């Protein structure tokens, strides 16, 4: 699991595959810190200089640049010059997760915790776009400007959930649906150290909250005593915020239009699914794959984006909004509705094109999993076999905080 990296002696090392590289020099010309160099045989990355900015990844025409190993001791450039192929990943136990989600240890830990409910290594969907990660860090954050801050739960309800739009002006901050960004609250804690980074999922599609406007939205709930959430919920238009990221390389949506997407969420866990849905609406209008959402809140007034969601046509998204505190009604949770919709869910589970995403409060995955296991049992499938199969093929995703 990723979080082992933060306490182990292992390091990720960036390498170039000499079998695929065509020695075009693009990476060397691109690298801002001079970490890429070459001799007559190979192009190599100097581990002592590479700062994981990933500037070299997109311009590489071959894909040879995108190789990583977890190592106890970094390969020197002299060793790399002699290679005619990449060495195998040495055996370093669980630390060898080659899907880097974030390079910054602090964020790695947060993401590893968020993905812990998966019960194994997280894998991106096969057809997902390649994410950019770790472009901005604590020591080099991006500065965003607040463009909007709206309460999206009814006044008078207990939950104060906000839709906060951040603009990046001329700063390049690419995100994919499902990725997170980090907020650095200003100031220090009582221990005299800077406040910890807090991660939030992006709620907009990759091309912006407003198309091509270089902005995105976050869905943030005010938590009593929470440093980051109160800071964010109190922001005024025009104020500047320090942002790190983007982070996350696995909780991503499939680009394959045939893919079915089951989204299960509570509260602000809906943020990435708002992004997924918007992406589908903008880029895959007539996708044959089905999108279905199970979204739980206490009351309609406390369900973020309740109004706008009503307007999303069922052809784009089949919505199951369930409520646990409507006076006079039975309490209903997302797992109950999954059981009620057994036929639909079972039909989807039978397809290798189906992807499940769970996002919300930590612990919700347990109830949801039980419901999925029930559905399977009644239809004669074995959830204990299906889940790892889906996980390993990048079709089962959990992100809970």
């Amino acid at each position: 699991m990723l979080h082992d990296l933060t306490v182990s002696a292992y390091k990720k090392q960036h390498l170039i595959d000499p079998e695929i590289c065509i020695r075009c020099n693009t990476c060397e010309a691109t690298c801002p810190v001079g970490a890429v160099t070459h001799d007559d045989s190979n192009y190599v990355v100097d581990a002592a200089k590479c700062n994981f900015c990933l500037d070299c990844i997109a311009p590489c025409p071959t894909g040879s640049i995108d190789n990583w190993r977890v190592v106890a001791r970094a390969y020197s450039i002299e060793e790399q010059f002699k290679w005619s192929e990449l060495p195998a990943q040495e055996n370093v136990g669980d630390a060898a997760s080659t899907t880097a989600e974030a390079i910054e240890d602090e964020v790695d830990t947060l993401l590893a915790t968020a993905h812990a409910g998966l019960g194994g290594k997280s894998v991106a969907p096969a057809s997902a776009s390649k994410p950019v990660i770790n472009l901005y860090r604590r020591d080099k954050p991006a500065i965003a400007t607040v463009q909007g801050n709206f309460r999206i739960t009814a006044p008078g309800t207990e939950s104060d959930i906000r839709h906060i739009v951040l603009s990046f002006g001329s700063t390049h901050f690419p995100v994919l649906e499902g990725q997170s960004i980090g907020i650095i609250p200003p100031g220090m804690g009582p221990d005299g150290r800077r406040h910890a980074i807090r991660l939030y999922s992006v709620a907009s599609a990759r091309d912006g909250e407003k198309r091509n406007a270089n902005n995105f939205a976050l869905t943030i709930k005010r938590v009593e005593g929470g440093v980051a959430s109160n800071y964010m919920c109190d922001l005024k238009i025009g104020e500047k915020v320090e942002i790190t990221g983007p982070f996350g390389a696995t909780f991503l949506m499939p680009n394959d239009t045939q893919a079915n997407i089951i989204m299960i969420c509570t509260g602000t866990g809906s943020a990435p699914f708002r992004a997924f849905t918007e992406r589908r609406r903008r880029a895959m209008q007539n996708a044959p794959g089905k999108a279905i959402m199970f979204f739980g809140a206490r009351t309609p007034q406390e369900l973020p984006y309740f109004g706008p969601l009503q307007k999303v046509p069922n052809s784009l998204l089949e919505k199951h909004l369930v409520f646990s505190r409507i006076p006079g009604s039975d309490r209903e949770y997302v797992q109950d509705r999954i059981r009620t919709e057994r036929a639909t869910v079972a039909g989807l589970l039978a397809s290798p094109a189906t992807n499940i995403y769970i996002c919300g409060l930590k612990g919700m995955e347990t109830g949801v999993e039980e419901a999925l296991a029930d559905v399977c049992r009644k239809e004669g499938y074995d959830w204990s076999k299906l889940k790892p199969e889906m996980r390993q093929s990048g079709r089962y995703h959990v992100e809970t905080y």
Partner: protein
Amino acid sequence: MTNSSAAYVEGVVDYSTKIPNNVGLVNDARVLKALEQWHPGYIDWWMTMGPDGFQTSEVYLRTAVSIDPKGWAQFDYVKMPEYRWGVLLATKDEERLVNFGASKGEKAWQDVPGEHRAALRRLIVIQGDTEPASVEQQRHLGKTAPSLYDMRNLFQVNVEEGRHLWAMVYLLHKYFGRDGREEAEGLLQRRSGDHDKPRMLGAFNEATPDWLSFFMFTFFTDRDGKMQLESLAQSGFDPLSRTCRFMLTEEAHHMFVGETGVGRVVERTCEAMKAAGAGDPYDIERVRRLGVIDLPTIQKKANFHYSLSLDLFGSEVSTNAANYYNAGLKGRFMETKIDDDHLLSNAKYPVFKLVDGQPKLVAEPALSAINMRLRDDYSKDCQGGIGRWNKIIEKAGIKFELKLPSVAFHRGVGEFAGVETTSDGTILSNDEWLRRRGEFLPNEDDGAFIASLMKPCWEKGKYAHWIAPPKVGIDNKPGDFEYVRIPRA
């Protein structure tokens, strides 16, 4: 920031005009108007001379949305006529100097120096002319694509050549007034292989009859383009330098298509030979019966394309090249990384010449031998790729080595124009050459055999029998990704 804002921000691509650009066209009414007037003619050219039969297909293309590393490769499905051809220049370096020649040390020129106007225009037009030419040469290849992956790569090369034409046309309109406008029109008028109005350089008037030719062309001929762009990127005329620097990033994809394309053909041939226990690479009949292209024929194709591409470098000893260098217009490959005076006043450079009927190295003034030097850098670059192909053959345990032919072989320009040699440079009489030509260059039978293999293979994730699948998908896509969506008739 919104995209409707009229304010131009340095370095950011502006999509508010019809022509995406990062050169502030919105504030340059004259050039914007000129380009907008040129645009319909360009689209017309693309529709008549661009990829034949695929203008309504959705192609998984990369488009640059900004020039910084993170933004320049955005992948999505695009119909080619709707591709956002734009004018994109690498970031301006305010401190940049003229780095070679008589004006070395001056600040790089933001405008065309009057005395170099004609020379610069000529350099830009020659470069510009090659871009649409190759699109024309390759326009029929889509129909026989060995996979959707290869088809996509072909179209990516084509749209980027189109963008490179835009890049040169922008310079012509922006800096060369009426002459520039006329030259820009001319770029749309000439046609590859046309007797009356051919493209300017020889190799760009040859046919690209099959996919092996296409891969060889992108490996050898586009590599000449890479070398030319690199030496123009050294130019003291800063807008040309910045244009070429950004084009080089795209050109790398073309090198990739060529090197891996030939590599995959070689790999498939070796695989098939091994599987059939056909260990003799010279038993051409037997190898061909396996439905793959025999290695000696691949060698002959390489001989053909390499020799034509060498001609593109011009005469080994050239006064024009010396003048361009001295004027600071066109430098050497990686000029700023070379450790010398960058004036070449007294330096010598060895040039391969015909002396008493035999090829020999002769020391010439380095300034006159600029073309020779660029060509040597080119040959070294080619040799790297050949070496990697040979590794594939070696790995399969087959005794065969691909080689670059002698620079004296099959030349139409320079020191060796007019003599005939074997592929290793031994001089032949005319009669011998006519008799033995087929040993060194593809003959009609070779062409007919390759043509017989050119059957389309458009099923997702499938590859024609004669070519191996790639090791990695474009944009890391899985093996069965649908790179081109072809509408059903």
